[in-house]
């Protein structure tokens, strides 16, 4: 017989998340500086690249809500990101919805898929949770491959960006950029509020010691499911926004490789830090853009970064920095 490892893991084992103490001020200063930088950025850097980076940064932050603050490793977040991209693209192109409604609909549908996948996945813990989410997201992939409205291998192309609230034409790259920036900032602010709410405190308690949270009277399954749905919805909003930016929804965004990429972004930036996943997302997008111009095999490089992160710096870039400076980022 081969024994099955039982959860919850003993508290002595180093958990995946690191959250050093000390006040929030550095984080606020950093946020202000970053916002100013992002407002100036499109006049210096190619806006489409920035928009792509912001979409993935929000995606990674949404993913981090689960892994960093509840300790749940989802290996199926591509289903929400890519699934929402299809819904948003279809809503904007076929139903002619305005962009904000199309993105909202994408986010909501991701939340619904998230509720279904989450309800099943939280019935198992740890490693089984990861495998379950991966398998269920693969099911979403096959549905997207075969469903009549997704366009199979071609995806949905030529999605109109439309006019925001029917007023602002998003075909202007700057209008689109500031819309994306607003969505990103709003999403990150929302995650910050979740994490720092009483609800977020319970999530962290579950991460640290689920059995104890249960004994204190919290219905941990309900909290985990709620966090899962929130994370899926935000991932969906990121995916829907990306579909409008690139006017395209394809299978690439629902594939399991995408689920792996968002794990890497979060790990590289720093699991359980506020800004880490966003930084990781931007770095991975930059790396991919760079690799596309070389003959180096991108998958190999991404895989090596993955291995290096796990073996050498599990705190991630921002996590390491915060640890050294003894501040919270």
């Amino acid at each position, binding site marked *: 017989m081969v024994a099955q490892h039982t959860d919850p893991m003993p508290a002595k084992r*180093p958990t995946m998340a690191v959250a050093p103490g000390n006040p929030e001020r550095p984080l606020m200063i950093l946020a202000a500086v970053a916002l100013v930088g992002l407002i100036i950025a499109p006049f210096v850097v190619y806006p489409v690249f920035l928009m792509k980076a912001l979409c993935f940064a929000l995606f990674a932050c949404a993913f981090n809500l689960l892994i960093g603050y509840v300790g749940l490793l989802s290996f199926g977040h591509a289903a929400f990101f890519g699934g929402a991209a299809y819904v948003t693209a279809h809503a904007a192109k076929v139903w002619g919805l305005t962009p904000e409604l199309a993105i909202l609909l994408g986010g909501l549908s991701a939340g619904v898929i998230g509720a279904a996948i989450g309800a099943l996945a939280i019935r198992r813990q740890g*490693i089984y949770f990861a495998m379950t989410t991966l398998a269920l997201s693969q099911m979403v992939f096959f549905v997207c491959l075969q469903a009549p409205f997704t366009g199979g291998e071609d995806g949905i192309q030529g999605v109109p960006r439309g006019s925001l609230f029917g007023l602002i034409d998003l075909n202007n790259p700057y209008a689109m950029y500031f819309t994306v920036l607003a969505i990103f900032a709003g999403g990150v602010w929302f995650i910050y509020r979740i994490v720092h709410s009483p609800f977020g405190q319970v999530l962290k308690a579950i991460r640290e010691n689920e059995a104890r949270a249960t004994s204190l009277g919290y219905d941990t399954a309900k909290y985990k499911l709620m966090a899962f749905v929130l994370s899926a919805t935000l991932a969906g909003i990121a995916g829907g926004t990306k579909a409008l930016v690139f006017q395209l929804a394809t299978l690439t965004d629902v594939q399991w490789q995408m689920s792996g990429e968002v794990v890497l972004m979060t790990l590289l930036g720093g699991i359980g830090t506020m800004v880490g996943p966003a930084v990781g997302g931007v770095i991975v997008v930059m790396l991919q853009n760079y690799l596309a111009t070389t003959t180096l095999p991108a998958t*190999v490089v991404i895989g090596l970064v993955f291995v290096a992160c796990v*073996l050498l710096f599990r705190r991630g870039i921002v996590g390491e920095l915060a640890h050294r400076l003894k501040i919270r980022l």
Partner: protein
Amino acid sequence: MMELIGIPPQALFGQLLLGLINGAFYALLSLGLAVIFGMLGVINFAHGALYMLGAFVAWLLFQELGVGYWPALILAPLVVAAFGVVLERTMLSRIAKMDPLYGLLLTFGIALVVEGLFRHLYGVSGQPYPVPDALQGGTNLGFMYLPTYRAWVVVASLAVCLGTWYAIERTKLGSYLRAATEKPQLVQAFGVNVPLLVTGTYAAAVALAGFAGVLAAPMYQVNPLMGSNLIIVVFAVVVIGGMGSILGAVITGFGLGLVEGLTKVFYPEAANIVIFVIMAIVLLVKPAGLFGRTT
């Protein structure tokens, strides 16, 4: 010729055989995953990549050195096992005492590197591998035509699965292994070299994946991505069966292969997702898995 519920028996039994073959691969791979998980507490995401590696080693042996199928059936798993020893000693052993999720992430990275490398070198198109002379042709059983090679795959994988079960459940080495799974420190204190046992277990389990790869080579084309889609289905198989039992893994593997084959006959649109649907149902009804002991 009779027809069963409107399906010609040729098609029905043909798909059932294909299902049995897929089941053989699910069984071989989930068996290895279960053994590794028991010993190392790691879900080996690289298992699919190592299955692909086995097929590629066989193909390279044939292409570059003219080594045929039968020697490759031994050599390729040995090469994969050697690679496994390197992986375990240089990387996996370093994260042994950490959160098992790190093991998943590490082996995921390894899978990306191995697959990416082969894709870079050989492209995504499949490489053909000939069926060995002794196993060519087939037999007409009256109700269906049975290709000899396919029959061999089913028999060989069943034999290997049962052999593995025997080695773990009925031999002295197997008893050390089971003991070390439960209480490694105690077994170490009794004078058994547990780290060596861990390395050996990992090597043997990935050798099974390599063996499955060689079996697959003449049937499917040798393709750098052949393992990555398979591994996700195998994960679902593992969630359904639970990793508590060797025979459980084998039965679940073969059973789900058959179900998948039947789905291809009666409702082909759902063939890709039927295993995931079953997984969802099992999670609802019996979250610990069919053969699982605890959650």
